[in-house]
């Protein structure tokens, strides 16, 4: 499939999500932007509460009713958020699909796995039972599950296999973009490594663009080419993965890296003092300033703009590289 380099498949522009909780508002996502081209693999990394899951849920239009979404999500140039649920629905699963966090538990226990994977196929493509089953067999094969297991029930699958089945389900209608929200988080490390391998393979073979969300930076590094680091609802740095892991520009990215234990080097591991700001607070200046080791006076006053430096984006007053602000 040939794609023009300049035409993005999926573009998120200045996405913002606020939740109205009666007693106030929670600012979960603030001004997140990124671009995804065909076959791109982007990772979104951050800790709990940073908004990474909210971003993908917003992209799929799956937020609860008290969410207020601002900004645009352009799929092939068309804003799919603009028309509400009805404009979003045709794109769901066929163009943009998702593997949810805890997908292992997302299966209906009283229906066979094959049935559940076939469901979107029959719904969106109006396929006959026989065609759907055939496709289910292909999908299971692709994710490494023997096709004979299609008639089994979810409880007969192990956690890792259910995750593979969830992936098969997400790929059922041949989407061009796959959003994977913490797909390996509840899995054992060996199974996790297998699933990461699988994600790489599937993305290569099917040409699917992948957005991989996780708190686990090394896992993300294994699968993606670019990584966006989120903190307090904003993308604080986006860079090619090799650059981010060797020379992170944002102090938070650097701190995250320093917090990863490395058995080979037995290096001392550092934790980051302090707490992310509450989601209900309005942030003045940079959200990371209270915890930043390289904080400047300006950081507490003005919010750092997004600076585009050719390879990626950095939202930090320390970034001195020249570039046009986004």
């Amino acid at each position, binding site marked *: 499939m040939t794609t023009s380099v300049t035409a993005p498949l999926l573009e998120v522009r200045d996405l913002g999500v606020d*939740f109205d*909780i009666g*007693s106030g508002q*929670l600012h*979960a996502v603030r001004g997140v932007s990124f671009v995804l081209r065909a076959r791109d693999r982007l990772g979104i990394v951050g*800790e*709990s*509460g940073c908004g990474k*899951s*909210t971003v993908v*849920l917003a992209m799929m239009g799956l937020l*609860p*009713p*008290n969410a207020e979404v601002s900004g645009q999500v352009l799929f092939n140039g068309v804003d799919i958020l603009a028309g509400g649920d009805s404009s979003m629905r045709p794109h769901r699963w066929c163009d943009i699909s998702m593997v*949810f*966090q*805890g997908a*292992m*538990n997302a299966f209906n226990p009283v229906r066979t796995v094959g049935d559940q994977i076939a469901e979107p196929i029959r719904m969106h493509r109006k396929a006959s039972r026989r065609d759907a089953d055939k496709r289910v067999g292909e999908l299971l094969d692709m994710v490494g599950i023997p096709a004979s297991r299609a008639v089994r029930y979810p409880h007969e699958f192990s956690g890792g296999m259910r995750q593979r089945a969830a992936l098969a389900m997400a790929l059922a209608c041949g989407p061009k973009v796959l959003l994977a*929200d*913490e797909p390996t*988080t*509840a899995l054992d490390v060996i199974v996790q490594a297998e699933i990461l391998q699988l994600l790489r393979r599937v993305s290569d073979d099917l040409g699917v663009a992948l957005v991989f969300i996780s*708190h686990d930076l090394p896992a993300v590094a294994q699968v993606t080419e670019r990584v966006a680091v989120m903190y307090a609802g904003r993308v604080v740095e986006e860079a090619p993965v090799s650059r981010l892991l060797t020379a992170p520009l944002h102090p938070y990215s650097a701190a995250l890296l320093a917090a990863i234990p490395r058995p080979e080097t037995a290096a001392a591991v550092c*934790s*980051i*003092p*302090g*707490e992310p700001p*509450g*989601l209900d*607070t309005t942030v003045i200046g940079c959200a990371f300033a*209270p*915890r930043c080791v390289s904080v400047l006076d300006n950081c507490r006053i003005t919010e750092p703009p997004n600076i585009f430096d050719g390879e990626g984006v950095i939202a930090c007053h320390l970034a001195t590289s020249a570039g046009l602000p986004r």
Partner: protein
Amino acid sequence: MVASPSGERVVSVPTRRGTALRLITGNRQTVLGLCALGVFLLIALLAPVIAPTPVNTGFANGFSAPTAVHPLGLDGGGFDVLSRLVHGAQTSLLVGSIAALVGMVIGGTIGFVAGYVGGRTDGVLMRITDYFLVIPDIPLMIVAAAVFGQSLTNIMIVIGLVYWASTARLIRAQVMSVRQRTFVKRVEAMGASPLFVLTRHVVPQVTPLLVANTVLMVANAIFAETYISFLGLGDPSVVSWGRMIQDALDQGAVVAGAWWVVLPPGLAVTLVVLAATIAGQGMEDTLNPRLKVGHLAVRRFRVRPLHGALDRP
């Protein structure tokens, strides 16, 4: 502000008031329901004062439309409808509360014991509970009223006996769930005796639910009492709303077009039951907050899937 070596700041979250206060005031429904119940309670307590005329005095020989002296008119026997209505409130609320209390005591005790002791005791108790759950309530009450006599006390006990079963199941489930909570296991591991755990951890966690459930049971009990009285099995010596409805039918109020005899008791029962239901459900909602932003809760990536309502990313 707490300063630890890592400088972690205490997260600012609005303080939770004591559970009792929260239970009552936490939800608009609850407040509304409780206020309405309070109004009825007041009416019931002040019945002798509010009633425009003594209850058992006849004024005429038959129906009489509402007038200034008798705001709700007279019924077929010539009695003042408003007076009867107001005295009927006493009966209904009294029976409702006591019956609910009986049900709460029986159901709560059995639920606690079954949930806490577990094992065979639990098995046996639950089979008994199931039996009471499947018995059709109204026929049982009819039979009991017929066999044990039609006194107010009997009615209260009978209603309680019929309705305790669902409470027992609820409490048992909650007790079992609390026992599995990590903080209970932690304290058990420290060497706490079962009694210690029961009184200091399980009971405080379960009691609010019991209270909410009891309020709901009041609604059921009042309705049941109305039903029984309507069928003529209620205590003949007291006025009750169900009895009023029965009398209305017996006296041919509908045929006579005497709406002031039929409507008020029916409306009164409806309102009280509605109030109790709203209050009880509001309380249950308060205890079981499914925040719309549950997915933003701090609890995150688990190694194993856990219990817990806050599951979504």
